[in-house]
Protein backbone atom coordinates (compact mmCIF):
# COMPACT_ATOMS: atom_id res chain seq x y z
CA UNK A 1 0.00 0.00 0.00
CA UNK A 2 1.22 3.48 -0.86
CA UNK A 3 0.01 6.47 1.15
CA UNK A 4 0.52 10.14 0.27
CA UNK A 5 -0.09 12.85 2.86
CA UNK A 6 -0.43 16.48 1.73
CA UNK A 7 1.32 18.93 4.05
CA UNK A 8 0.82 22.67 4.08
CA UNK A 9 2.73 25.43 5.85
CA UNK A 10 0.56 27.91 7.79
CA UNK A 11 1.10 30.71 10.29
CA UNK A 12 0.77 29.58 13.90
CA UNK A 13 -2.79 29.86 15.26
CA UNK A 14 -1.81 32.60 17.70
CA UNK A 15 -0.08 34.76 15.05
CA UNK A 16 -1.00 38.40 14.83
CA UNK A 17 -2.46 38.83 11.33
CA UNK A 18 -1.20 41.93 9.49
CA UNK A 19 -0.79 42.96 5.87
CA UNK A 20 1.77 44.94 3.88
CA UNK A 21 2.21 46.64 0.48
CA UNK A 22 -1.04 48.55 0.73
CA UNK A 23 -2.89 45.45 1.99
CA UNK A 24 -1.95 43.31 -0.99
CA UNK A 25 0.43 40.94 0.81
CA UNK A 26 0.55 38.99 4.07
CA UNK A 27 3.05 40.50 6.49
CA UNK A 28 5.04 37.53 7.78
CA UNK A 29 7.38 39.57 10.00
CA UNK A 30 7.63 37.76 13.32
CA UNK A 31 5.23 35.02 12.22
CA UNK A 32 5.97 31.51 13.47
CA UNK A 33 5.26 28.91 10.77
CA UNK A 34 3.79 25.53 11.59
CA UNK A 35 2.47 22.44 9.81
CA UNK A 36 -1.21 23.09 9.15
CA UNK A 37 -2.78 21.48 12.27
CA UNK A 38 -5.35 19.42 10.35
CA UNK A 39 -2.58 18.00 8.13
CA UNK A 40 -0.35 17.21 11.10
CA UNK A 41 -2.62 16.08 13.90
CA UNK A 42 -5.10 14.07 11.88
CA UNK A 43 -3.99 13.25 8.30
CA UNK A 44 -0.32 12.56 9.03
CA UNK A 45 -0.80 10.80 12.38
CA UNK A 46 -3.49 8.47 10.97
CA UNK A 47 -1.21 7.63 8.03
CA UNK A 48 1.63 6.86 10.46
CA UNK A 49 -0.70 4.57 12.46
CA UNK A 50 -1.63 2.70 9.27
CA UNK A 51 2.06 2.20 8.49
CA UNK A 52 2.72 0.99 12.04
CA UNK A 53 0.01 -1.63 11.55
CA UNK A 54 1.29 -2.60 8.11
CA UNK A 55 5.08 -2.13 7.98
CA UNK A 56 5.10 -2.90 4.23
CA UNK A 57 3.15 0.31 3.62
CA UNK A 58 5.04 3.15 1.96
CA UNK A 59 4.34 6.63 3.35
CA UNK A 60 5.28 9.73 1.38
CA UNK A 61 4.65 13.36 2.27
CA UNK A 62 4.16 16.11 -0.28
CA UNK A 63 4.18 19.87 -0.04
CA UNK A 64 3.99 22.62 -2.65
CA UNK A 65 6.13 25.63 -1.80
CA UNK A 66 9.49 27.35 -1.92
CA UNK A 67 12.65 26.31 -0.09
CA UNK A 68 11.27 28.07 3.02
CA UNK A 69 8.80 25.19 3.47
CA UNK A 70 11.60 22.68 4.06
CA UNK A 71 11.78 23.14 7.87
CA UNK A 72 8.05 22.34 7.96
CA UNK A 73 8.35 19.19 5.87
CA UNK A 74 11.35 18.07 7.97
CA UNK A 75 9.22 18.57 11.07
CA UNK A 76 6.55 16.38 9.52
CA UNK A 77 9.16 13.71 8.67
CA UNK A 78 10.19 13.76 12.34
CA UNK A 79 6.74 12.43 13.18
CA UNK A 80 6.97 9.72 10.52
CA UNK A 81 7.01 8.91 6.83
CA UNK A 82 9.64 7.42 4.53
CA UNK A 83 10.36 10.38 2.30
CA UNK A 84 9.06 13.77 1.30
CA UNK A 85 8.52 15.52 -1.99
CA UNK A 86 8.57 19.29 -2.36
CA UNK A 87 7.17 20.74 -5.56
CA UNK A 88 9.16 23.92 -6.02
CA UNK A 89 6.32 26.32 -6.75
CA UNK A 90 4.69 29.17 -4.88
CA UNK A 91 1.49 27.96 -3.27
CA UNK A 92 -0.99 30.70 -4.10
CA UNK A 93 -3.81 29.10 -6.08
CA UNK A 94 -5.68 25.96 -4.97
CA UNK A 95 -6.08 24.63 -8.51
CA UNK A 96 -2.38 25.06 -9.27
CA UNK A 97 -1.37 23.39 -5.98
CA UNK A 98 -3.82 20.54 -6.65
CA UNK A 99 -2.52 20.07 -10.19
CA UNK A 100 1.05 19.74 -8.86
CA UNK A 101 -0.02 17.20 -6.23
CA UNK A 102 -2.15 15.24 -8.73
CA UNK A 103 0.80 14.99 -11.14
CA UNK A 104 3.03 13.45 -8.46
CA UNK A 105 0.18 11.27 -7.15
CA UNK A 106 -0.57 9.90 -10.63
CA UNK A 107 2.99 8.83 -11.31
CA UNK A 108 3.36 7.42 -7.78
CA UNK A 109 0.16 5.32 -8.02
CA UNK A 110 -0.88 5.94 -4.42
CA UNK A 111 -3.76 3.95 -2.91
CA UNK A 112 -4.61 6.47 -0.25
CA UNK A 113 -4.23 10.24 -0.28
CA UNK A 114 -4.81 12.16 2.95
CA UNK A 115 -5.25 15.91 3.41
CA UNK A 116 -6.33 18.01 6.38
CA UNK A 117 -9.92 19.25 6.20
CA UNK A 118 -8.72 22.80 5.42
CA UNK A 119 -5.72 25.05 6.02
CA UNK A 120 -6.04 27.51 8.88
CA UNK A 121 -4.94 30.42 6.66
CA UNK A 122 -7.19 30.25 3.57
CA UNK A 123 -9.86 27.96 5.06
CA UNK A 124 -10.91 26.87 1.57
CA UNK A 125 -11.20 23.12 2.10
CA UNK A 126 -10.58 22.67 -1.61
CA UNK A 127 -7.29 20.87 -2.36
CA UNK A 128 -8.57 17.36 -1.45
CA UNK A 129 -11.58 17.60 -3.76
CA UNK A 130 -9.55 19.09 -6.59
CA UNK A 131 -6.85 16.40 -6.36
CA UNK A 132 -9.54 13.69 -6.31
CA UNK A 133 -11.23 15.20 -9.37
CA UNK A 134 -7.98 15.50 -11.31
CA UNK A 135 -7.24 11.82 -10.53
CA UNK A 136 -10.89 10.76 -11.03
CA UNK A 137 -10.85 9.12 -7.58
CA UNK A 138 -13.63 9.07 -4.98
CA UNK A 139 -13.34 11.71 -2.25
CA UNK A 140 -14.55 11.41 1.34
CA UNK A 141 -14.33 14.78 3.05
CA UNK A 142 -14.41 15.94 6.68
CA UNK A 143 -13.60 12.46 7.99
CA UNK A 144 -13.87 11.95 11.76
CA UNK A 145 -12.84 8.27 11.75
CA UNK A 146 -10.89 6.13 9.29
CA UNK A 147 -10.49 2.35 9.34
CA UNK A 148 -9.03 0.08 6.72
CA UNK A 149 -9.59 -3.65 6.27
CA UNK A 150 -7.93 -5.08 3.17
CA UNK A 151 -8.89 -2.82 0.33
CA UNK A 152 -12.02 -1.37 1.94
CA UNK A 153 -12.03 1.84 3.96
CA UNK A 154 -14.79 2.52 6.47
CA UNK A 155 -14.98 6.24 7.09
CA UNK A 156 -17.20 8.41 9.31
CA UNK A 157 -17.78 11.85 7.82
CA UNK A 158 -19.41 15.03 9.03
CA UNK A 159 -22.81 15.97 7.66
CA UNK A 160 -25.01 18.84 8.84
CA UNK A 161 -26.35 17.87 12.24
CA UNK A 162 -24.44 14.62 12.59
CA UNK A 163 -22.25 12.03 10.94
CA UNK A 164 -22.60 9.25 8.44
CA UNK A 165 -20.55 6.11 7.99
CA UNK A 166 -19.52 5.19 4.48
CA UNK A 167 -17.55 2.48 2.75
CA UNK A 168 -15.31 2.88 -0.23
CA UNK A 169 -12.68 0.77 -1.97
CA UNK A 170 -9.17 2.13 -2.48
CA UNK A 171 -7.90 4.24 -4.10
CA UNK A 172 -9.53 7.19 -2.34
CA UNK A 173 -8.77 10.76 -1.27
CA UNK A 174 -9.78 11.59 2.31
CA UNK A 175 -9.78 14.96 4.10
CA UNK A 176 -9.27 14.51 7.84
CA UNK A 177 -10.40 16.39 10.92
CA UNK A 178 -10.70 15.87 14.66
CA UNK A 179 -11.49 12.30 15.64
CA UNK A 180 -9.39 10.59 12.95
CA UNK A 181 -6.28 10.50 15.18
CA UNK A 182 -4.73 12.06 18.28
CA UNK A 183 -1.98 14.65 18.09
CA UNK A 184 1.57 13.31 18.57
CA UNK A 185 4.77 15.03 19.65
CA UNK A 186 7.91 14.07 17.68
CA UNK A 187 10.53 12.27 19.78
CA UNK A 188 14.31 12.74 19.61
CA UNK A 189 14.79 9.60 17.51
CA UNK A 190 12.26 10.86 14.99
CA UNK A 191 13.90 14.27 14.86
CA UNK A 192 17.35 12.72 14.28
CA UNK A 193 15.99 10.33 11.63
CA UNK A 194 14.18 13.12 9.79
CA UNK A 195 17.50 14.81 8.96
CA UNK A 196 18.60 11.92 6.76
CA UNK A 197 15.27 10.99 5.19
CA UNK A 198 15.09 11.77 1.46
CA UNK A 199 13.52 15.12 0.55
CA UNK A 200 13.10 15.25 -3.21
CA UNK A 201 12.65 18.61 -4.89
CA UNK A 202 10.58 18.45 -8.06
CA UNK A 203 10.05 21.29 -10.51
CA UNK A 204 6.39 22.21 -11.11
CA UNK A 205 4.39 21.55 -14.25
CA UNK A 206 3.07 24.63 -16.07
CA UNK A 207 -0.45 25.44 -14.86
CA UNK A 208 -2.37 28.72 -15.16
CA UNK A 209 -3.63 30.06 -11.85
CA UNK A 210 -7.42 30.39 -11.80
CA UNK A 211 -7.53 32.87 -8.90
CA UNK A 212 -5.41 35.67 -7.41
CA UNK A 213 -5.56 37.69 -4.21
CA UNK A 214 -6.45 41.32 -4.96
CA UNK A 215 -6.27 42.65 -1.41
CA UNK A 216 -6.77 41.83 2.25
CA UNK A 217 -8.62 43.64 4.99
CA UNK A 218 -8.98 43.31 8.72
CA UNK A 219 -12.46 43.22 10.23
CA UNK A 220 -13.60 46.49 11.82
CA UNK A 221 -12.46 46.65 15.43
CA UNK A 222 -15.11 45.75 17.98
CA UNK A 223 -16.42 48.95 19.49
CA UNK A 224 -15.78 47.49 22.92
CA UNK A 225 -17.85 45.38 25.24
CA UNK A 226 -20.91 46.87 26.91
CA UNK A 227 -20.85 45.60 30.48
CA UNK A 228 -24.17 45.06 32.18
CA UNK A 229 -24.56 44.65 35.92
CA UNK A 230 -25.15 41.06 37.05
CA UNK A 231 -28.21 42.22 38.98
CA UNK A 232 -29.74 43.82 35.90
CA UNK A 233 -30.17 40.89 33.49
CA UNK A 234 -33.35 42.50 32.11
CA UNK A 235 -31.16 45.27 30.64
CA UNK A 236 -29.15 42.67 28.68
CA UNK A 237 -32.38 41.21 27.31
CA UNK A 238 -33.57 44.69 26.31
CA UNK A 239 -30.27 45.44 24.50
CA UNK A 240 -30.29 42.09 22.70
CA UNK A 241 -33.88 42.70 21.64
CA UNK A 242 -33.85 46.42 20.77
CA UNK A 243 -30.24 47.29 19.96
CA UNK A 244 -28.70 44.08 18.55
CA UNK A 245 -32.07 42.83 17.25
CA UNK A 246 -30.75 39.36 17.97
CA UNK A 247 -33.64 37.88 19.97
Amino acid at each position, binding site marked *: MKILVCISKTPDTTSRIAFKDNNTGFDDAGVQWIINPYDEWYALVRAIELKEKDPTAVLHLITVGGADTEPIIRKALALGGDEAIRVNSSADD*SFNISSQIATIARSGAYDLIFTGKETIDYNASSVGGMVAE*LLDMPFVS*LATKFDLVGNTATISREIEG*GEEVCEVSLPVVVSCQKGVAEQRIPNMRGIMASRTKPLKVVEPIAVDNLTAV*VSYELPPAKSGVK*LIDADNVAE*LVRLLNEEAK*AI
Partner: protein
Amino acid sequence: MVLIYVDQADGHIKKSGLEALTYGAALAIQMGVPAEAILLGTTTENLALLGSYGISKVHHAGSESLNTMDAQVYAKVISEAATKTGATVIIFSHNPTGKAVSSRVSAALKAGLVAGAVALPDTSNGFSVKKSVFSGKAFAHIAIQSGVKVISINPNSFYIKADAAGTATVETFVPTAQNAKITVTAVNKVTGEVPLTEAEIVVSGGRGLKGPENWGIVEDLAKVLHAATACSRPVADAHWRPHHEHVGQTGFQVAPNLYFAIGISGAIQHLAGVNRSKTIVVINKDAEAPFFKAADYGIVGDAFEVVPKLTAAIKQLKGIN
Protein backbone atom coordinates in the same frame (compact mmCIF):
# COMPACT_ATOMS: atom_id res chain seq x y z
CA MET B 1 -26.51 32.26 -16.39
CA VAL B 2 -25.99 31.70 -12.68
CA LEU B 3 -26.54 28.05 -11.66
CA ILE B 4 -27.25 27.42 -7.98
CA TYR B 5 -26.80 24.01 -6.39
CA VAL B 6 -29.57 23.61 -3.81
CA ASP B 7 -28.55 21.20 -1.06
CA GLN B 8 -31.18 19.02 0.56
CA ALA B 9 -31.30 16.24 3.14
CA ASP B 10 -34.01 13.59 3.43
CA GLY B 11 -35.97 15.30 0.65
CA HIS B 12 -36.03 18.72 2.35
CA ILE B 13 -34.10 21.76 1.17
CA LYS B 14 -31.61 22.90 3.79
CA LYS B 15 -31.39 26.44 5.10
CA SER B 16 -27.95 26.67 3.52
CA GLY B 17 -29.56 25.74 0.18
CA LEU B 18 -32.02 28.63 0.50
CA GLU B 19 -29.15 30.99 1.33
CA ALA B 20 -27.39 29.87 -1.86
CA LEU B 21 -30.59 30.52 -3.86
CA THR B 22 -30.93 34.03 -2.45
CA TYR B 23 -27.25 34.79 -3.13
CA GLY B 24 -27.31 33.39 -6.66
CA ALA B 25 -30.50 35.25 -7.58
CA ALA B 26 -29.02 38.54 -6.32
CA LEU B 27 -25.83 37.92 -8.30
CA ALA B 28 -27.84 37.15 -11.45
CA ILE B 29 -29.65 40.50 -11.14
CA GLN B 30 -26.31 42.25 -10.63
CA MET B 31 -24.91 40.59 -13.78
CA GLY B 32 -28.11 40.96 -15.82
CA VAL B 33 -28.42 37.22 -16.49
CA PRO B 34 -30.97 34.55 -15.50
CA ALA B 35 -30.65 32.45 -12.33
CA GLU B 36 -31.42 28.73 -12.39
CA ALA B 37 -31.17 26.01 -9.77
CA ILE B 38 -30.13 22.38 -9.75
CA LEU B 39 -31.30 19.83 -7.21
CA LEU B 40 -30.14 16.21 -6.87
CA GLY B 41 -32.07 13.22 -5.54
CA THR B 42 -35.70 12.64 -4.67
CA THR B 43 -37.48 15.52 -2.96
CA THR B 44 -40.71 16.26 -1.13
CA GLU B 45 -40.50 19.97 -1.99
CA ASN B 46 -42.68 21.76 -4.54
CA LEU B 47 -39.81 22.94 -6.73
CA ALA B 48 -41.90 25.41 -8.75
CA LEU B 49 -42.23 27.49 -5.58
CA LEU B 50 -38.47 28.12 -5.62
CA GLY B 51 -39.39 30.89 -8.09
CA SER B 52 -40.07 33.07 -5.05
CA TYR B 53 -36.30 33.19 -4.42
CA GLY B 54 -35.82 34.84 -7.80
CA ILE B 55 -34.92 31.93 -10.05
CA SER B 56 -36.60 31.08 -13.36
CA LYS B 57 -35.85 27.37 -13.72
CA VAL B 58 -35.07 24.31 -11.60
CA HIS B 59 -33.14 21.40 -13.12
CA HIS B 60 -34.07 18.31 -11.13
CA ALA B 61 -31.92 15.20 -11.38
CA GLY B 62 -34.32 13.20 -9.28
CA SER B 63 -32.85 9.71 -9.43
CA GLU B 64 -32.97 7.81 -6.15
CA SER B 65 -29.31 6.86 -6.60
CA LEU B 66 -28.46 10.54 -6.07
CA ASN B 67 -29.83 10.49 -2.51
CA THR B 68 -26.36 9.42 -1.34
CA MET B 69 -23.79 12.21 -1.50
CA ASP B 70 -20.89 10.83 -3.49
CA ALA B 71 -18.84 13.91 -4.35
CA GLN B 72 -17.44 12.28 -7.47
CA VAL B 73 -20.91 11.57 -8.85
CA TYR B 74 -22.39 14.90 -7.71
CA ALA B 75 -19.56 16.82 -9.36
CA LYS B 76 -20.04 14.96 -12.65
CA VAL B 77 -23.80 15.63 -12.68
CA ILE B 78 -23.45 19.31 -11.77
CA SER B 79 -20.56 19.91 -14.18
CA GLU B 80 -22.55 18.27 -16.97
CA ALA B 81 -25.60 20.42 -16.20
CA ALA B 82 -23.46 23.56 -15.99
CA THR B 83 -21.89 22.88 -19.39
CA LYS B 84 -25.20 21.99 -21.06
CA THR B 85 -27.00 25.06 -19.73
CA GLY B 86 -24.09 27.41 -20.39
CA ALA B 87 -23.69 28.48 -16.75
CA THR B 88 -20.99 31.09 -16.18
CA VAL B 89 -21.18 31.15 -12.37
CA ILE B 90 -21.98 28.15 -10.15
CA ILE B 91 -23.02 28.73 -6.54
CA PHE B 92 -22.73 26.31 -3.60
CA SER B 93 -23.08 26.61 0.15
CA HIS B 94 -19.77 26.19 2.00
CA ASN B 95 -21.37 23.35 3.99
CA PRO B 96 -20.12 19.72 4.09
CA THR B 97 -21.64 18.84 0.69
CA GLY B 98 -20.59 22.12 -0.90
CA LYS B 99 -17.00 21.81 0.35
CA ALA B 100 -16.64 18.36 -1.20
CA VAL B 101 -18.42 19.07 -4.48
CA SER B 102 -17.53 22.70 -5.34
CA SER B 103 -13.81 21.89 -5.32
CA ARG B 104 -14.35 18.95 -7.69
CA VAL B 105 -16.56 21.01 -10.05
CA SER B 106 -13.91 23.75 -10.03
CA ALA B 107 -11.21 21.29 -11.10
CA ALA B 108 -13.46 19.53 -13.63
CA LEU B 109 -14.38 22.75 -15.42
CA LYS B 110 -11.09 24.59 -14.73
CA ALA B 111 -13.30 27.23 -13.17
CA GLY B 112 -11.69 29.30 -10.41
CA LEU B 113 -13.19 28.76 -6.95
CA VAL B 114 -13.66 31.17 -4.07
CA ALA B 115 -14.60 29.02 -1.07
CA GLY B 116 -16.31 30.68 1.88
CA ALA B 117 -17.59 33.92 0.31
CA VAL B 118 -19.10 36.48 2.70
CA ALA B 119 -20.38 39.05 0.18
CA LEU B 120 -21.66 39.33 -3.38
CA PRO B 121 -18.87 39.55 -5.97
CA ASP B 122 -17.53 42.91 -7.08
CA THR B 123 -18.17 42.84 -10.85
CA SER B 124 -17.36 46.51 -11.51
CA ASN B 125 -13.81 45.73 -12.65
CA GLY B 126 -13.24 42.03 -13.31
CA PHE B 127 -14.76 39.57 -10.86
CA SER B 128 -13.58 39.46 -7.25
CA VAL B 129 -15.16 37.91 -4.19
CA LYS B 130 -14.65 38.74 -0.51
CA LYS B 131 -14.00 35.71 1.66
CA SER B 132 -13.08 35.01 5.24
CA VAL B 133 -9.41 34.01 5.80
CA PHE B 134 -7.09 33.25 8.73
CA SER B 135 -9.96 31.52 10.57
CA GLY B 136 -12.08 34.66 10.73
CA LYS B 137 -9.25 37.04 11.66
CA ALA B 138 -9.26 38.77 8.23
CA PHE B 139 -10.88 38.95 4.80
CA ALA B 140 -9.38 38.59 1.34
CA HIS B 141 -10.70 39.83 -1.99
CA ILE B 142 -9.95 37.09 -4.52
CA ALA B 143 -10.17 37.63 -8.27
CA ILE B 144 -11.41 34.70 -10.36
CA GLN B 145 -9.59 34.75 -13.69
CA SER B 146 -11.32 31.91 -15.54
CA GLY B 147 -14.38 32.23 -17.78
CA VAL B 148 -16.56 30.00 -15.62
CA LYS B 149 -16.52 30.75 -11.89
CA VAL B 150 -17.44 28.77 -8.78
CA ILE B 151 -18.37 30.35 -5.44
CA SER B 152 -19.27 28.66 -2.17
CA ILE B 153 -20.87 30.94 0.41
CA ASN B 154 -20.38 30.82 4.16
CA PRO B 155 -23.49 29.59 5.99
CA ASN B 156 -25.34 32.30 7.96
CA SER B 157 -23.75 35.11 5.94
CA PHE B 158 -26.84 35.95 3.89
CA TYR B 159 -30.43 36.51 4.90
CA ILE B 160 -32.88 34.37 2.99
CA LYS B 161 -35.24 36.41 0.80
CA ALA B 162 -38.27 34.87 -0.86
CA ASP B 163 -40.24 37.83 -2.17
CA ALA B 164 -39.98 37.42 -5.96
CA ALA B 165 -43.19 37.03 -7.96
CA GLY B 166 -43.86 33.97 -10.13
CA THR B 167 -42.97 30.32 -10.09
CA ALA B 168 -40.02 28.47 -11.57
CA THR B 169 -40.19 26.06 -14.50
CA VAL B 170 -39.19 22.58 -13.33
CA GLU B 171 -37.25 20.48 -15.82
CA THR B 172 -36.08 16.92 -15.33
CA PHE B 173 -32.36 16.62 -15.88
CA VAL B 174 -31.13 13.19 -16.89
CA PRO B 175 -27.37 13.03 -16.44
CA THR B 176 -25.03 10.50 -18.01
CA ALA B 177 -25.23 7.37 -15.83
CA GLN B 178 -22.65 7.32 -13.02
CA ASN B 179 -21.53 4.55 -10.71
CA ALA B 180 -21.26 5.69 -7.11
CA LYS B 181 -18.17 4.30 -5.39
CA ILE B 182 -19.25 5.34 -1.91
CA THR B 183 -21.88 3.41 0.05
CA VAL B 184 -23.42 4.97 3.14
CA THR B 185 -23.99 2.27 5.77
CA ALA B 186 -25.22 4.34 8.73
CA VAL B 187 -26.43 7.86 9.50
CA ASN B 188 -26.16 9.22 13.02
CA LYS B 189 -28.07 12.46 13.27
CA VAL B 190 -28.73 14.41 16.38
CA THR B 191 -32.50 14.49 16.46
CA GLY B 192 -34.70 16.97 18.28
CA GLU B 193 -31.91 19.50 18.55
CA VAL B 194 -30.99 22.46 16.38
CA PRO B 195 -27.91 21.52 14.27
CA LEU B 196 -25.01 23.63 15.50
CA THR B 197 -23.78 24.90 12.14
CA GLU B 198 -27.29 25.94 11.06
CA ALA B 199 -28.35 27.62 14.29
CA GLU B 200 -29.21 31.33 14.43
CA ILE B 201 -28.39 31.37 18.13
CA VAL B 202 -25.77 29.28 19.95
CA VAL B 203 -25.46 28.88 23.72
CA SER B 204 -22.01 27.62 24.64
CA GLY B 205 -20.57 26.50 27.98
CA GLY B 206 -17.02 26.14 29.24
CA ARG B 207 -15.03 24.86 32.20
CA GLY B 208 -16.57 27.58 34.36
CA LEU B 209 -19.66 25.37 34.61
CA LYS B 210 -17.59 22.93 36.69
CA GLY B 211 -19.17 19.67 35.48
CA PRO B 212 -21.59 17.99 33.05
CA GLU B 213 -24.29 17.83 35.73
CA ASN B 214 -24.56 21.63 35.58
CA TRP B 215 -25.49 21.86 31.89
CA GLY B 216 -29.19 22.23 32.69
CA ILE B 217 -28.88 26.03 32.83
CA VAL B 218 -27.28 26.07 29.36
CA GLU B 219 -29.94 23.77 27.93
CA ASP B 220 -32.77 25.78 29.49
CA LEU B 221 -31.48 29.02 27.98
CA ALA B 222 -30.99 27.31 24.60
CA LYS B 223 -34.53 25.96 24.71
CA VAL B 224 -36.24 29.32 25.18
CA LEU B 225 -34.15 30.79 22.35
CA HIS B 226 -34.55 27.78 20.04
CA ALA B 227 -30.76 27.74 20.05
CA ALA B 228 -28.13 25.04 19.58
CA THR B 229 -25.85 24.13 22.50
CA ALA B 230 -22.09 24.12 22.14
CA CYS B 231 -18.98 23.88 24.30
CA SER B 232 -15.29 24.70 24.46
CA ARG B 233 -12.50 22.20 23.75
CA PRO B 234 -11.62 21.33 27.39
CA VAL B 235 -15.27 20.47 27.99
CA ALA B 236 -15.39 18.11 24.99
CA ASP B 237 -11.99 16.62 25.86
CA ALA B 238 -13.19 15.90 29.39
CA HIS B 239 -16.26 14.17 27.86
CA TRP B 240 -18.63 16.49 29.71
CA ARG B 241 -20.28 17.12 26.35
CA PRO B 242 -20.13 15.26 22.99
CA HIS B 243 -17.42 16.21 20.48
CA HIS B 244 -19.98 17.36 17.93
CA GLU B 245 -20.68 20.32 20.25
CA HIS B 246 -17.06 21.52 20.32
CA VAL B 247 -16.58 24.90 18.64
CA GLY B 248 -13.15 26.38 18.05
CA GLN B 249 -10.14 26.11 15.78
CA THR B 250 -10.13 22.32 15.78
CA GLY B 251 -13.86 21.84 16.29
CA PHE B 252 -16.72 23.47 14.42
CA GLN B 253 -16.56 27.02 13.15
CA VAL B 254 -19.90 28.72 13.65
CA ALA B 255 -21.28 32.09 12.56
CA PRO B 256 -24.65 32.56 14.28
CA ASN B 257 -26.44 35.86 14.77
CA LEU B 258 -25.99 35.51 18.51
CA TYR B 259 -23.40 33.56 20.50
CA PHE B 260 -23.54 33.17 24.28
CA ALA B 261 -20.26 32.19 25.93
CA ILE B 262 -20.88 31.02 29.48
CA GLY B 263 -17.88 30.27 31.67
CA ILE B 264 -15.49 30.25 28.69
CA SER B 265 -12.29 32.25 29.10
CA GLY B 266 -11.89 32.90 25.36
CA ALA B 267 -8.60 31.31 24.30
CA ILE B 268 -7.55 32.36 20.79
CA GLN B 269 -8.28 28.84 19.50
CA HIS B 270 -11.87 29.13 20.73
CA LEU B 271 -12.30 32.61 19.25
CA ALA B 272 -11.18 31.26 15.85
CA GLY B 273 -14.32 29.15 15.84
CA VAL B 274 -16.78 31.87 16.84
CA ASN B 275 -15.45 35.25 15.78
CA ARG B 276 -17.72 35.40 12.73
CA SER B 277 -20.76 35.54 15.05
CA LYS B 278 -22.70 38.79 14.62
CA THR B 279 -23.30 39.46 18.32
CA ILE B 280 -21.33 37.88 21.17
CA VAL B 281 -22.46 37.84 24.81
CA VAL B 282 -19.96 36.76 27.47
CA ILE B 283 -20.93 35.71 30.97
CA ASN B 284 -17.93 35.05 33.18
CA LYS B 285 -17.11 35.66 36.82
CA ASP B 286 -13.53 36.60 35.92
CA ALA B 287 -13.55 40.22 34.74
CA GLU B 288 -10.09 39.63 33.19
CA ALA B 289 -11.30 36.80 30.90
CA PRO B 290 -9.92 37.57 27.40
CA PHE B 291 -13.31 36.79 25.87
CA PHE B 292 -14.68 40.16 27.09
CA LYS B 293 -12.38 41.86 24.55
CA ALA B 294 -14.12 40.04 21.70
CA ALA B 295 -17.62 40.48 23.12
CA ASP B 296 -20.41 42.94 22.33
CA TYR B 297 -22.15 42.52 25.66
CA GLY B 298 -20.82 41.14 28.91
CA ILE B 299 -21.88 40.32 32.42
CA VAL B 300 -19.23 39.81 35.08
CA GLY B 301 -20.95 37.42 37.43
CA ASP B 302 -21.62 33.88 38.58
CA ALA B 303 -23.16 31.89 35.71
CA PHE B 304 -25.21 29.81 38.13
CA GLU B 305 -27.03 32.97 39.26
CA VAL B 306 -27.02 35.00 36.03
CA VAL B 307 -28.08 32.37 33.48
CA PRO B 308 -31.35 31.24 35.16
CA LYS B 309 -32.30 34.92 35.59
CA LEU B 310 -31.52 35.51 31.92
CA THR B 311 -33.66 32.53 30.88
CA ALA B 312 -36.53 33.86 32.98
CA ALA B 313 -36.22 37.37 31.52
CA ILE B 314 -36.24 36.02 27.95
CA LYS B 315 -39.29 33.88 28.73
CA GLN B 316 -40.99 37.03 29.93
CA LEU B 317 -40.04 38.91 26.76
CA LYS B 318 -41.36 36.10 24.58
CA GLY B 319 -44.43 35.56 26.70
CA ILE B 320 -43.51 31.95 27.53
CA ASN B 321 -44.77 30.60 30.86
